[in-house]
């Protein structure tokens, strides 16, 4: 392509300078806020604390402006911005121009700092008249984190680097990332990582100020829940992207970068449960401050793994400049929080002890140990290449079977505890109550096992059978909780049953939202167990007109079509799917070839040698998916491409376009056999359906209640508790 160069445009270059200036101003605000917060905390002078808070607001304002400036540059195709030239192009669709910002390291850092500044402003606004001892220190921690990330952008990875003169066209966004899931996945994951810094900062503030009751937990509870939710959404979008876009058919591969996001999610899950024990019973204080410190350290470690390239991963994010500073930050956070916890052990003493094993707190403790154990296993496996290099001098790595061996049994136990936790009361559950609560879930478990053994080959997949049985236990236990909530209120107030249920659930959204999350997770785990144990997976090589049998399906390769567009050449196969002679569906898996900018590929070759992506042909149903991917064998085109590279190099682009159309037509007239991967994946869709249900539950639980309503609810709960004669209010 002939490269024309835009005239020197001083106005546009100044925009990049404005961006850098915004970052510098934001850094000053952040540094000031950190200093003012420390001084305010030290002297107890509230004016300094308020001033620090306002500096955080200013930092948020400046970073917001910087983000808007960069996004406008992406939309306007302003290639004076090096970031725009490297990650976008005039032909990139507008939606992907907007999301291209975080496809770069620099843009990701900006996103990170921006989300941090917004979340910090939010939490500091909410707490502006509360927790006077903790807030100044929390402000300082948040501002220090902000300074770190803004500093990285100023000194290590500049999002506002400029190109002068600007190139006429940009590189464009990597085709693999042109997928709606991938557009939203990074900000979700980052928001999850970033939001964990809020409970972490308040925890550190509480440790420094030695105010170690549950107040820091109550204040940041919703932030923790939202962080957990975002991290979960990020994980699920990533897995869905892998399933639909990578032409592989899997959704999880125990890759280091995947593990890096899963570990803080697991520890965060443990944290969300154990803080309830501290709130209700005043126990597990050391455990809670340790868990939140570990969660946040793992978030930073995840970012480090993504950035530094120390581990072999399919997400090879190139060697980067920010690995060193990040490692220092991880060290400071890990050592600093450990020192603080050890020096405050006296204030972290539990207010009481666990009375009985048949209590919610001991169930939560076991669930915590399982989650932490799971994270430890994943941590060990992820870092094993470094561990083995340290001890043996050679890098050894562990593959999926090793992970599955440990994760499966722990995961199966966790399904059971997902159902047990909600059933048990705080303090102690009497034998009679336990029998009453466990009878229906127990029957459901037994029936599930009996039915599955009778009608399926689940007997040969014992772990999956356990998951189904325990998931049935959990779902029935949760249904029972909702039923009891409705009928208790119905009996007390005489309201109609549905209304009674809605009111009872609405009055304690945190509890019932949590139960909805549990139900969603149980469904997700059913999907994982079924699709990983009962999958049929075939690689086929078919000529047009041939048919193959996969599972119960007959797959007929009817024809191949091509769709040469401006941006890419797309080849698609038409597959007719029948079962027992009856037509089921027609699938059109496709493969898209994006042109490369690499001059060595040749004038014609560059249209075929660039990145290619899969569009899978997918038939989704409640019972399972039929998944197909297609890879045409274009090697018969090679002689013609080589000739074309020689003879057509000097032709104008339009004429080259005609040559490419002719080549594509030539291929369609006489296609070679194509490779297909066909997967019959039972119940796999429930992974994401369950996730959506869990998301709804999390929103329900985190939705802020008005202060006045909250007081009313507390009074109502106390009365209800008295009337029912139970010990203490329900969670």
């Amino acid at each position, binding site marked *: 392509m002939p490269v024309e160069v835009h005239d020197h445009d001083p106005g546009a270059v100044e925009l990049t300078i404005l961006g850098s200036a915004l970052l510098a101003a934001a850094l000053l605000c952040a540094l000031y806020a950190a200093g003012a917060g420390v001084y305010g905390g030290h002297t107890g002078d509230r004016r300094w604390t308020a001033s620090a808070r306002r500096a955080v607001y200013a930092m948020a304002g400046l970073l917001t402006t910087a983000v808007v400036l960069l996004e406008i540059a992406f939309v306007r195709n302003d290639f004076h911005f090096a970031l725009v030239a490297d990650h976008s192009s005039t032909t990139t669709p507008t939606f992907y121009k907007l999301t291209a910002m975080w496809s770069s390291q620099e843009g990701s850092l900006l996103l990170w700092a921006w989300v941090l500044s917004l979340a910090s402003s939010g939490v500091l606004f909410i707490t502006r008249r509360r927790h006077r001892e903790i807030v100044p220190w929390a402000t300082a921690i948040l501002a220090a984190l902000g300074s770190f990330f803004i500093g990285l952008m100023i000194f290590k990875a500049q999002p506002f680097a400029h190109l002068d003169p600007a190139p006429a066209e940009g590189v464009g966004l990597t085709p693999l990332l042109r997928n709606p899931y991938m557009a939203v996945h990074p900000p979700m994951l980052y928001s999850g990582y970033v939001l964990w810094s809020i409970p972490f900062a308040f925890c550190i503030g509480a440790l420094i100020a030695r105010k170690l009751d549950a107040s820091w937990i109550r204040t940041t509870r919703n932030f923790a829940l939202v962080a957990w939710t975002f991290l979960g959404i990020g994980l699920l979008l990533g897995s869905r992207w892998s399933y639909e876009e990578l032409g592989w058919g899997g959704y999880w591969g125990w890759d280091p970068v995947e593990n890096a996001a899963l570990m803080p999610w697991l520890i965060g899950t443990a944290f969300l449960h154990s803080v309830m024990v501290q709130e209700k019973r005043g126990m597990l204080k050391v455990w809670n401050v340790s868990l939140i410190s570990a969660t946040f350290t793992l978030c930073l470690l995840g970012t480090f793994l993504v950035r530094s390239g120390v581990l*072999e991963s399919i997400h090879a994010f190139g060697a980067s400049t920010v690995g060193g500073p990040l490692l220092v930050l991880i060290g400071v956070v890990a050592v600093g929080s450990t020192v603080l916890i050890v020096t405050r052990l006296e204030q972290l003493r539990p207010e009481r002890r666990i009375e009985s094993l048949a209590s919610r707190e001991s169930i939560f403790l076991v669930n915590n140990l399982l989650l932490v154990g799971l994270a430890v296993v994943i941590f060990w496996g992820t870092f094993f290449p470094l561990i083995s290099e340290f001890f043996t001098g*050679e890098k050894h790595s562990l593959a999926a079977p090793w992970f599955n061996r440990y994760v499966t049994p722990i995961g199966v136990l966790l399904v059971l505890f997902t159902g047990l936790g909600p059933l048990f009361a705080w303090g102690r559950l009497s034998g009679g109550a336990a029998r009453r609560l466990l009878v229906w879930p127990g029957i459901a478990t037994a029936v599930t096992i009996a039915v599955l053994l009778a009608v399926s080959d689940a007997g040969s997949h014992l772990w999956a059978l356990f998951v189904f049985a325990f998931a049935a236990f959990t779902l029935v236990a949760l249904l029972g909780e909702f039923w009891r909530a409705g009928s208790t209120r119905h009996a007390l107030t005489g309201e109609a049953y549905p209304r009674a249920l809605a009111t009872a659930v609405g009055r304690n959204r945190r509890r019932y939202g949590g139960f909805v999350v549990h139900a969603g997770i149980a469904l997700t785990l059913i999907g994982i167990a079924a699709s990983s144990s009962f999958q049929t997976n075939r690689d086929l090589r078919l000529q047009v007109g041939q048919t193959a049998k996969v599972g119960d399906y007959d797959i007929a390769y009817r024809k191949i079509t091509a769709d040469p567009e401006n941006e890419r050449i797309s080849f698609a196969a038409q597959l007719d799917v029948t079962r027992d002679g009856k037509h089921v569906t027609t699938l059109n898996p496709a493969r898209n070839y994006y042109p490369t900018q690499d001059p060595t590929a040749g004038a014609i070759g560059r249209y075929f040698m660039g990145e290619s*992506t899969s569009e899978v042909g997918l038939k989704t149903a409640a019972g399972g998916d039929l998944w197909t991917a297609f890879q045409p064998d274009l090697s018969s085109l090679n002689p013609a491409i080589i000739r074309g590279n020689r003879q057509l190099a000097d032709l104008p682009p339009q004429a080259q376009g005609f040559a490419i159309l002719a080549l594509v037509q030539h291929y369609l007239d006489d296609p070679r056999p194509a490779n297909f991967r066909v997967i019959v994946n039972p119940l796999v869709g429930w992974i994401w359906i369950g996730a959506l249900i869990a998301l709804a539950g999390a929103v329900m639980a985190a939705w802020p209640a008005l202060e006045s309503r909250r007081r009313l609810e507390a009074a109502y709960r106390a009365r209800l508790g008295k009337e029912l004669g139970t010990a203490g209010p329900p969670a």
Partner: protein
Amino acid sequence: MDPSRKRKIRLVVALSAAVLLAAGLVYTSFSASSEAKEPSQLVNANPNQTYELTGDVVPGSIHHSGDQLDFRISDRDGSHPIPVSYTGTVPDPFRDGREVIVTGKLQDGTFVGERDSLITKCPSKFTTTTPGQSS
């Protein structure tokens, strides 16, 4: 039994369980892992040992024959090319010059990959590219 003694016993049981689990973890990880090697490090390879071969696909070396894919992998500096034969899924980004990881064994000078073990490193969103250069 007095409660503090009971607690102590519980702690000892829990700790021993943790230690046992940790020992299992360490033992299985060393026996189940495969060594990461570049082609030049495979010269004295043990034919019975599984390796994880990493390197770049030698440009022009990719040939399909039926289900089998043959290509060569070299060290990242382009030296020591070694023939590889492989069957199974080929990831989307697989092509000339790309950095790949394949797990398998060395047999008579050819590295025979395990089915579906080929991994291509993503042409990542985070690698720096400038216009005119290939990513």
